[in-house]
């Protein structure tokens, strides 16, 4: 990043063995992970300052939370992304939204997060502050509290700036069974908006591929949208966010879990022209490109209209649309009706998607 301050020259007595706290340190040093005063200062000045709440402030070894009776939903996710900041988001927003969304996909209301940071020695403190501020904003938008955390520092070269692991806890609505196995023949498949924005935005931000776009990552907390969807479609069967592996992989997971077939209409899948153009150029298939703010829902056909109408009134569901049906055959497989009217199997991706030669 161009705006990062130059690494400061540390005094000779500052060493990994004997960290002496410096009052105006501008970058992460090993001492910040020592557990001593530097760690405490870091927690107080950066993490507590941003995420402040009574549970975190108590400063105990674990967070103590009172919840109403019911069923907990828990999910954990590690976030590694290069670059740390990309159009439309950053690793902090990603770390909050990714876990909030995973919890929400069970139909649960996310309440609390924990956040664990692995920081690379030499990371500018200003970078950490920007990421933490972004996490605070995303957590506020989602309405969740960050109630526990951890920080470790590794030597320069042993990590790519920073990694963040978040764990989310939410409450499920009683009596509602939502999951991939619940899809039934006769249901329809709804997608909340255009696909591929996140993957292509991050790829172009890396700058290695020689193209630029004005695309923004779609990274967003979807829990409020999900609550709207649950109210609009009382018999909703499946919620799933098509992150890594893209829409095609998510649809295949649902087909396998439920043992149903899915018939998807290629022409109905919304894709922005910039994503299409980048995919054409790179030899990627947008159906396999990652999203961080989209949801696939499967609902009985008679609830589809009400669901779509409700989704389209929300910020993250404006472009929601129907993309396919659930069938009995072929069991466990996804069929794609192609843009020209033929049919083929839509499979999972094998390994990493590689740019084509020509």
């Amino acid at each position, binding site marked *: 990043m161009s705006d990062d301050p130059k690494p400061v020259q540390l005094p000779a007595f500052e060493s990994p063995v004997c960290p002496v706290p410096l009052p105006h340190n501008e970058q992460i040093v090993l001492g910040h992970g020592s557990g001593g005063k530097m760690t405490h200062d870091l927690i107080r000045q950066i993490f507590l300052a941003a995420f402040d709440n009574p549970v975190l402030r108590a400063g105990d070894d674990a967070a103590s939370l009172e919840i109403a009776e019911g069923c907990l939903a828990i999910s954990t996710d590690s976030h590694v992304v290069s670059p740390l900041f990309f159009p439309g988001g950053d690793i902090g927003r990603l770390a909050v939204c990714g876990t909030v969304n995973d919890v929400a996909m069970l139909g649960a209301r996310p309440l609390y997060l924990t956040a664990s940071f692995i920081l690379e020695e030499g990371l500018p403190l200003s970078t950490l502050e920007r990421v933490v501020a972004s996490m605070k904003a995303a957590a506020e938008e989602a309405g969740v509290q960050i109630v526990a955390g951890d920080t470790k520092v590794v030597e320069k070269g042993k990590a790519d700036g920073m990694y963040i692991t978040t764990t989310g806890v939410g409450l499920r609505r009683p009596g509602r069974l939502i999951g991939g196995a619940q899809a039934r023949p006769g249901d329809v498949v709804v997608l909340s908006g255009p696909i591929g924005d996140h993957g292509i935005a991050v790829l172009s931000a890396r700058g290695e591929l020689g193209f630029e776009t004005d695309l923004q990552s779609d990274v967003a907390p979807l829990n409020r949208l999900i609550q709207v969807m649950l109210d609009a479609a009382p018999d909703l069967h499946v919620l799933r966010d098509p992150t890594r592996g893209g829409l095609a992989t998510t649809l295949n997971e649902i087909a396998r879990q439920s043992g149903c077939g899915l018939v998807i209409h290629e022409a109905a899948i919304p894709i922005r022209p910039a994503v*299409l153009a980048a995919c054409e150029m790179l030899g990627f298939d947008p159906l396999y490109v990652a999203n961080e703010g989209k949801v696939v829902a499967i609902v009985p056909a008679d609830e589809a209209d009400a669901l779509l109408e409700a989704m389209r009134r929300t910020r993250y569901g404006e472009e929601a649309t129907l993309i396919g049906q659930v069938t009995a055959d072929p069991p466990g497989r996804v069929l794609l009706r192609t843009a020209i009217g033929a049919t083929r199997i839509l499979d999972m991706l094998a390994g990493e998607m590689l740019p084509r030669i020509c």
Partner: protein
Amino acid sequence: MKYVTEYRDAALVQGVMERIRRLVTRPWVIMEICGGQTHSIVRYGLDQMLPPEIELVHGPGCPVCVTPLELIDKALAIASRPEVIFCSYGDMLRVPGSGRDLFSVKAAGGQVRVVYSPLDAVEIARQNPEKQVVFFAIGFETTAPPNVMSVLAARRLGLKNYSILVSHVRVPPAMEAILSAPANRVQGFLLAGHVCTVMGYWEYLPLAEKYRVPMTVTGFEPLDLAQGLWHTICMLEEGRVAVENAYARSVTLEGNRAAQETIRQVFEECDRTWRGIGVIPMSGWWLRPEFAEFDAEKRFDVEAIRPQESPICIAGQILQGQKKPRDCLAFGKECTPEHPLGATMVSSEGACAAYYRYGR
């Protein structure tokens, strides 16, 4: 998108397919030369819309698939050297050499980078004067102009740390090898639109005449492919032999003369081994002696590497249109895109990978 979405119009494609159905009176075997066309055909399901009389067989036009094992092993040997940054087009990374691929070299600490243009590799060489930067220059006539441009750029910049590992092949000699084989079944060809954009299609006129086989220069979108098939089937049904151009928005008879001249300046014709097929005389290019200093094979002394192929894999027969991926005993069992035995299972343009991915 201009010049793309227009050629994916379902009604127009279905219209051409309907005309083909009304036209066909007997079975025909047609080969699409280019792997990009194979990919498009199965991705859109065009083969399923054709009448049963028309059999499409998939040609050797996947540069990743036909790059010989020997060169891949040389690439692996060079990429493993600590002083080397090895640059490659993305889909070469997963092609298995004898026992490993470029991904495993990367995992073991080798510096392997994906680039979109060989000029990016030249730039990496300029920025890393203490490193040796090698570009894996594979491909058909399509990638030859950028690959030779990188050599010219390196010479202009006076770079002593840039070289290319050349594995260039040409379409016409491969077609002649297919047509002259006793087991040949191919009666008509869809010519590769990108190759013809560079080279024109004059080279194919004597081939069509000699073997009495109609050919159509064809693009890559569904409507392009439908049009190419329509032209070829018309000629077959009428008993007419010609080379027709159904990709006129990009291809002319004589092609891009400037690009051809640049290729000739740096490359000269040579015999080449095609993976799975064997040696085809004068079917490829290598660096002219005056550009030998940019030859990675010479620079890194890997000329002695001579490996062995998997005995089960039938990629060679598939690439010549004699067999289909389903005829292979290993297809989808020992051989999958995650664990490919042969290169046709690796590249998204490879026939086996396309069949596997699209559930054929």
